[in-house]
């Protein structure tokens, strides 16, 4: 791209024509204040805070709305001079700030944005403290209803329109708008409608003032009181980078962290707002079922009850199921313990998915999240990325908005926020007009969802999907999209633990439905649930059920022994996201009451069962984990595409007929209630009632 020279604050730089002057000034190391400008949104240019001086120009220039290509050199041919400091710029910005503050209320002491407010910070730099000349009343604006997550105090709004642009451009749900004009302009939804996006919480982060704040977090804390812990989200399998803000034992809020390769700077509403579920329905002491009722017990009693039962159970009548939120360490510990006991049946696929451990690319999202932006054709099979991975959906939307990404869907018609060609039901897998588009595309992609893979004919669907991938040349050269490689075959997981569990091979003997069936028929006598609540836990017959987990959900209610574990914010743990990228979640608080970290529970139990696991610390466990699966030693990298390997790709799934009479339904029926933490959250219950038509059940305390 052509570029030109500029002199910014006396420093000569070379800036590309496509950049804005604001970006060019930042390249030169200058700091430009701004309210409306945001690098991931379109340029609005309406706050005027980013004014700079272009020497020779008659007026200060709004640097966000001025492109470098429009800045011509001086008459004598020397590069244009831009000043971002000095009395001229300062006076201009002070004038803008004065205008902004005419109508902005002085309610910082009662404003939730206080301490992390762009306007507050910049008023410290550019406010005119010495005098004021406006004695008129400030304008007052009625507060608007935007749903259960976004609280509005619209008098504080400075009309930067970041929220409107986010809703329209990134979220793809054009529910927000600016009505009226001039002084009477107001940001609103259409007639008090809720902002129906799974990414709605991000407008709170974008709002540079306190007009849009978080409703569940309202009046809870000041930012400087909170301890910040950088962690990983487990509400979906994307592994979004988050920051967990805690005060004492309470997780007060979750905010996104920047990671260009995964979540940019967005997170979903469930990741952000399910955190109040961490304080409710918690298992804080062990329980043992005595005469039909769960009674509080000591750890020793609970372990003794398990040991007594294990001693009388034959290994082939023992099963273990890993839940959706488990970290790799406890999966490894459970696998080692169960292997030592000789348990015959292990499974991690609560949803009944037909994926099997094997070569990693066969169950990963190989294109990678950032790689989606390079794709030019996309076929969705039985998935709803808007609910299964909302931030990935925003990335698909971005790819569609930036270029020529053509998207088609096999399965139910869903509003995914971008146009999708509907190909029909599962029969379209055999032949459909979009296959030609895929074959002609340079970088075609296919995403197979859990909704398709968890059907009885899931393996046959997987086989056909792999065939489509092979036929249309999706499995390209080795390397990432940026390096010229391409792998367009993708599986979209919904469970944060799934990839790690498959990596560790936690699949053996009967699958989950087989275990339930066996328990009902009396063929399975002992079942160990590691946070597993998402399958038919109510029908385990007379089997002895041990539930280890953090929340009193379906699994714990049906258990004979309950062992209180730690939630994802209460332990250090490794999670592999659907790209196969291993990331570490960090402990932000301690587990409540007598609850312990899950690997430690398994280690202690192994001692009681006489099969002591060979690690006494988390470090030792990690060493064992890395020794078994070296990929857990490489944090932060997605699985590297090794190029087409016919032996791998011809063995995906299984041959078999498709059940065309069965409707291809998505895996998630209610986005807001997919795991025990979300189900314990009041906020998620409100969202479910507002957006997903769910009934509003308060968590029973």
């Amino acid at each position: 791209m052509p570029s030109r020279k500029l002199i910014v604050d006396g420093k000569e730089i070379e800036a590309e024509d496509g950049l804005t002057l604001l970006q060019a000034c930042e390249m030169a190391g200058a700091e430009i204040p701004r309210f409306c400008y945001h690098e991931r949104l379109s340029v609005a240019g309406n706050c005027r805070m980013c004014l700079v001086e272009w020497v020779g120009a008659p007026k200060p220039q709004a640097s966000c709305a001025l492109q470098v290509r429009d800045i011509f050199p001086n008459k004598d041919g020397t590069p244009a001079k831009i000043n971002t400091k000095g009395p001229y710029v300062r006076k201009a910005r002070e004038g803008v700030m004065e205008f902004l503050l005419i109508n902005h209320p002085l309610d910082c002491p009662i404003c939730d944005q206080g301490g992390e407010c762009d306007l507050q910070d910049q008023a410290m730099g550019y406010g005119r403290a010495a005098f004021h000349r406006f004695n008129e009343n400030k304008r007052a604006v009625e507060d608007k209803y935007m749903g259960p997550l976004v609280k509005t105090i619209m008098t504080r709004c400075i009309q930067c329109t970041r929220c409107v642009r986010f809703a329209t451009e990134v979220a793809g749900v054009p529910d927000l708008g600016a009505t009226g004009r001039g002084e009477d302009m107001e940001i609103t939804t259409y007639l008090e409608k809720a902002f129906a996006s799974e990414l709605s919480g991000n407008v709170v982060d974008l709002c540079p003032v306190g007009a849009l704040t978080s409703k569940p977090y309202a009046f809870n804390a000041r930012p400087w009181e909170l301890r910040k812990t950088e962690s990983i989200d487990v509400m979906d399998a994307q592994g979004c980078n988050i920051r967990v803000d805690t005060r004492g034992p309470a997780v007060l809020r979750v905010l996104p962290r920047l990671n260009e390769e995964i979540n940019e700077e967005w997170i979903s509403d469930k990741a952000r707002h399910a955190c109040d579920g961490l304080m409710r329905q918690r298992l804080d002491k062990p329980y043992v079922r005595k005469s039909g009722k769960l009674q509080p017990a000591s750890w020793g009693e609970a372990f003794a009850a398990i040991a007594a039962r294990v001693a009388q159970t034959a290994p082939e009548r023992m099963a273990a199921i890993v839940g959706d939120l488990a970290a790799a360490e406890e999966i490894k510990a459970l696998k080692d313990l169960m292997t030592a006991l000789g348990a015959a049946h292990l499974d991690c696929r609560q949803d009944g998915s037909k994926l099997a451990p094997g070569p990693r690319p066969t169950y990963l999202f190989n294109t990678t999240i950032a790689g989606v932006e390079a794709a030019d054709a996309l076929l969705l099979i039985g998935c709803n990325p808007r609910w299964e991975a909302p931030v990935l959906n925003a990335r698909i939307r971005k790819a569609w908005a930036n270029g020529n990404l053509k998207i088609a869907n096999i399965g139910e018609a869903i509003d995914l926020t971008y146009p999708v060609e509907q190909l029909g039901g599962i029969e379209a897998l055999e032949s459909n007009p979009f296959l030609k588009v895929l074959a002609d595309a340079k970088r075609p992609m296919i995403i197979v969802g859990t909704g398709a893979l968890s059907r009885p004919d899931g393996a046959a669907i997987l086989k056909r999907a792999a065939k489509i991938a092979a036929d249309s040349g999706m499995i390209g050269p080795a390397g990432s999209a940026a390096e010229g490689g391409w792998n367009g075959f993708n599986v979209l997981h919904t469970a944060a633990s799934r990839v790690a569990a498959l990596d560790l091979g936690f699949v053996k003997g009967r699958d989950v439905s087989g275990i339930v069936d066996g328990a009902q028929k009396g063929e399975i006598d002992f079942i160990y649930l590691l946070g597993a609540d998402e399958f038919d836990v109510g029908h385990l017959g007379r089997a002895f059920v041990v539930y280890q987990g953090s929340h009193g959900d379906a699994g714990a209610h049906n258990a004979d022994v309950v062992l209180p574990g730690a939630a994802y914010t209460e332990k250090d743990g490794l999670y592999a996201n659907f790209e196969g990228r291993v990331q570490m979640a960090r402990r932000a608080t301690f587990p409540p009451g007598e609850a312990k970290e899950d690997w430690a529970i398994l280690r202690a139990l192994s001692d009681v069962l006489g099969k002591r696991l060979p690690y006494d610390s988390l470090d030792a466990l990690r060493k064992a984990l890395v020794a078994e699966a070296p990929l857990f030693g490489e944090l932060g990298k997605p699985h590297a595409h090794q190029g087409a390997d016919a032996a791998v790709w011809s063995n995906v799934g299984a041959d078999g007929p498709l059940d065309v009479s069965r409707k291809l339904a998505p895996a998630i029926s209610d986005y807001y209630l997919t795991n025990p933490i979300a189900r314990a959250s009041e906020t998620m219950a409100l969202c479910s009632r507002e957006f997903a038509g769910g009934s509003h059940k308060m968590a029973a305390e």
Partner: protein
Amino acid sequence: MSVRRLSADQPASFAFNDANAVRCEREIAKYPQGRQASAVIALLWIGQEQEGWVTKPMIEAVAKMLAMPYIRVLEVATFYTMFNLEPVGEHLVQVCTTTPCWLRGSDDVVAACKKHIAAAPHTVSADGKFSWMEVECLGACVNAPMLQIGKDFYEDLDGPKTEALLEAFRSGQTPKPGAGNGRHTSEPEGGALTLKDPQLYNGGYNRKPEAP
């Protein structure tokens, strides 16, 4: 100007009549494929001509016709003051109160409206015949003060003349639009003072001198 909100009182439904549906199609066809939203102002205007004001069902109908989110049409309807968001009387009286009209006595015109229509603007009179509002300059300053009823200008008014005008409308007549004091358009009262030479108008000054 004040905060513009949709009326609390909304009809149940809206549909363009056949003639207006044809006009709408013609407006939409003016824009290239994918840019149909450009016709939103025209469609709201046609709707307002049909109903007298912009209703919530109208906004939703227009949004559906142009494949726009409702909020985008609401933004347009609340931005432009030419769209009436409250019901209007059979005759909508728009009184200019910008400086030239005000200097020439628009206060009297407003007082006449208050007396003969309703005390407050944007209120339909008891008999349903009128509603009035203040507007910014309508561009007839030479004939100030003036007001607009429907699509016609009534100019050179004062209090009594405005009252007579409104009474005429009330009794079902349609007074002749234009200057109210007998002058021709915006000529000086009593007739033109300059540019009276007929040669100006028959091309006389432009005629080439005849060859000798």
